[in-house]
């Protein structure tokens, strides 16, 4: 993409006394705000995000929180860039520390020329690049509550980064206007306290963030886009159980669905959630649940039931560190093997994996369509970073949305049938059907092996035919499944393969590799299972080596590919990370270039 002519946002009048050097121009900036849970680190990140968006920048934010309501170290990171981004920067330009632990935890991520801005009313730092302001006592003393330290810190940052004062103020108004006149007034005062402190200390613009042209963007998360995709895709029944990092999907839908005669229920456990969804799907509603590892384990029973009973359900799995309770708030992609082999016995299932928040919207709709058309459970695999990190994204386009309810018959179409068998054998394995309540229609639906009528059967010939009816859907549906996206140089001999949120760091790694003269091409898998051999085989044929980039210990997607394409074994390498944090682009570059 073309970059706009650079415009700086610094105002010379803001420069403090003694400020002589020219501010460094930044087109890509990362700020980390750390403190104790409840310190309001997210507030600062949110305020910065609002400012950067007003300046037309792309932003990406992530949270590093512990699984507790308050207390414990927590930090929020925000990156702003003139280029589209979908990952955190490898180094941070500014650390805002509300306690000393924030410095200890985050110092290793600070760029060599980065700055630490800390609350000197809480601790003192002797680090050469650290600057202290007593935010809590300054704001607390004048405004009566130390909580305004967040806005004061934002004010100081605005001076250090040469923000436009009017826009800086507009951000505060935008956030607090609707709270109360008092909140707005006090936060505006806190802003001035922070600004003045920085100006008095000669902190005038050290670096200046260049303007961008990301004007048409929305700011969202994968979880929010799944929820919106569900609504637009005709999803009308959702049952779930709170679990990090999936809960927001349920919370968003509690707000979004009721105006459309939709129902959202918080169930007593994941067993109930999946079975309520099964009941609703049987009754004819487009139905979904969302969960994460431990909940997925409980839902496994129900998903297998839907697979055999041929009921269309969608399960969104927002993966976190496992197994067991693992690390609830941290990032991993280690559920894939489980999803591919989900449950006892054998039944068809499709696993779709969006790579961007925008993709979350469209693939949720695809998942609903595929479930309805093929009468199978469809698993939508996200990961913590994709689910919860906020990112600027192109707005969704409803003109791209198509709904497909497959062989769902109207009452009139049904009345023209001679016989109605819920599990009728057909060439594509899909049986025409109507929901219960249709005059004249009766069906038996069961997770037991059954004959075409739905009656329990242990007849060996019937068993074989029914297994083919169901299992062959994974072959028959291949052309319907979401296709991969390919990025990079078509003639490159180095391949990268990834799914989910690794899209962001892999795309950045490709740019970094290109600057080093290393050409690469990237296969972003959007269907993971059945393994899309028809596109993976030619991709692998065209490269000398392919790196499967994923967040798990055993290289789960790599193993699935090897199983499906054993002849490609020699070309496949794994780039793995399982420390609970997302890849940074240089890590991928390092692994590719060291080989």
């Amino acid at each position, binding site marked *: 993409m073309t970059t706009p002519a650079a415009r700086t946002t610094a105002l010379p009048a803001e420069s403090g006394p003694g400020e002589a050097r020219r501010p460094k121009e930044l087109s890509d900036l990362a700020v980390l705000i750390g403190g104790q849970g409840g310190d309001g680190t997210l507030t600062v990140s949110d305020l910065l995000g609002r400012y950067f968006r007003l300046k037309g920048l792309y932003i990406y934010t992530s949270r590093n929180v512990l699984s507790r309501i308050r207390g414990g170290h927590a930090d929020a990171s925000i990156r702003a860039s003139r280029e589209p981004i979908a990952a955190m920067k490898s180094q941070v330009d500014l650390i805002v520390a509300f306690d000393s632990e924030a410095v200890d935890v985050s110092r290793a991520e600070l760029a060599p020329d980065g700055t630490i801005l800390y609350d000197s009313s809480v601790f003192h730092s002797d680090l050469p690049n650290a600057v202290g302001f007593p935010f809590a006592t300054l704001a607390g003393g004048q405004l009566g509550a130390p909580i305004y330290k967040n806005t004061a810190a934002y004010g100081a940052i605005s001076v250090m980064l040469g923000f436009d004062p009017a826009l800086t103020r507009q951000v505060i108004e935008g956030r607090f206007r609707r709270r109360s006149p008092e909140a707005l007034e006090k936060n505006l005062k806190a802003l001035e306290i922070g600004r003045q402190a920085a100006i008095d200390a000669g902190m005038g613009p050290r670096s200046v963030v260049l303007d961008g042209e990301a004007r048409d963007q929305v700011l969202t998360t994968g979880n929010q886009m799944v929820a919106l995709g569900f609504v637009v895709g005709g999803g009308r029944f959702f049952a779930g159980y709170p679990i990090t990092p999936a809960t927001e999907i349920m919370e968003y839908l509690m707000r979004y669905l009721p105006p459309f005669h939709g129902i959202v229920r918080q169930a007593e456990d994941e067993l109930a959630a999946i079975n309520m969804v099964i009941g609703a799907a049987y009754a004819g509603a487009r139905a979904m649940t969302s969960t994460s590892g431990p909940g997925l384990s409980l839902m496994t029973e129900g998903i297998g039931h839907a697979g055999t009973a041929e009921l269309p359900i969608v399960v969104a799995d927002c993966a976190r560190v496992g197994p067991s309770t693992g690390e609830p708030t941290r990032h991993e992609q280690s559920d894939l093997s489980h999803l591919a082999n989900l449950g006892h016995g054998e039944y068809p299932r499709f696993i779709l994996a969006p790579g961007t928040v925008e993709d979350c919207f469209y693939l949720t709709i695809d998942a609903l369509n595929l479930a309805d058309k093929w009468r199978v459970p469809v698993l939508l695999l996200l990961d913590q970073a994709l689910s919860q990190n906020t990112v600027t994204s192109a707005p969704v386009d409803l003109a791209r949305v198509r709904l497909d309810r497959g062989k769902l018959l109207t009452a009139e179409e049904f009345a023209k049938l001679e016989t109605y068998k819920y599990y009728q054998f057909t060439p594509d394995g899909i049986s025409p059907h109507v929901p219960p309540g249709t005059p004249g229609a*009766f069906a038996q639906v069961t997770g037991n092996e059954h004959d075409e009528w739905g009656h329990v059967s242990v007849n060996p010939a019937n068993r074989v035919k029914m297994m083919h009816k169901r299992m062959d859907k994974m072959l028959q549906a291949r052309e319907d499944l979401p296709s991969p996206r390919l990025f990079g140089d078509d003639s490159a001999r180095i391949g990268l393969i990834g799914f989910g949120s690794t899209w962001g760091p892999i795309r950045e790694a490709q740019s970094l590799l290109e600057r080093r003269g290393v050409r690469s091409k990237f296969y972003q898998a959007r269907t993971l299972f059945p393994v899309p051999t028809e596109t993976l085989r030619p991709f692998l044929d065209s490269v000398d080596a392919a790196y499967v980039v994923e967040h798990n210990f055993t290289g789960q997607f790599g193993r699935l590919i090897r199983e499906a394409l054993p002849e490609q074994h020699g070309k496949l390498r794994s780039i793995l990370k399982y420390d609970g944090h997302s890849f940074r682009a240089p890590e991928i570059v390092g692994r590719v270039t060291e080989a």
Partner: protein
Amino acid sequence: MVQSVKPIPSTWCPGCGDFGVLAAVKKAAAEVGVPVHEQVLVGGIGCSGGIHNFIEINGIHALHGRLLAQAIGVKLANPRLTVIAAGGDGDGYAIGMGHFMHAFKKNASILYIVMNNETYGLTKGQASPTSQIGFEGNIEHPFDAILTALSIPVPNFIARTFSGDPKGMMQVLAEAIRFNRANGGFAFVEDLSPCVTYNDTFKLWREKIVDVAKLPGYDATDRKTVFRLCLETMESGRIPVGVMHRPKSVDPETAALELKLLPDRVGPAVTDIALEPNRAAYERLIQSVT
């Protein structure tokens, strides 16, 4: 006339108490006048859970213990359906206990029939949650679903019937179905349904049952009194049967879950999901939240 699925011959042992339930369900639905295509029977796992195969009806055979969750899903998706969940005591009070308790809390207008035979018949006679102490070496206290149900103050319908009294059972089930059709809330009926093969209690139960309606002070709208009558009956070694609770009046606007969620009774399964009629509303929603 489209040829749909036909019932298959029952797989139950001759003389099984579940035959009484089968006959009573059919007669009760017919008496209430529920069109057959509007009935959904959700079966559990176990002998009793096969009941949906033996009736011309829309049947869904749930996972073991999960029938209530599926039945509530069906009802909420299309509140115009008459939804009956039917299973055994192991299904409902052991593996399904969590869902059983929450069904009272949810209070959706479905009928749940538990065919209680105090044993796991299909797996050949193990002790169940309602087994008496000493049965197959059982040393745990039997669970009483009626006392538990009465202890939850929710406007609902609670009854216990006996397969040896098919006429009484039919009347109770008809009342329960009417209660559901009026969106009154959850209806729970425990039927004493002996397993003639592994725990034949027909004669014993016939001797022990006591009709609570004939006890002094009985008032089905008064939980406290009925709870006391049931407890006293049990302490004297007898088994209380009859309608244990019915609300003084049905208040559909506040009672049933499906009406709280869907005041106009248009459920998720029957609403128009096509893009065009909803496009403008979708665009407004997306713009307002992103």
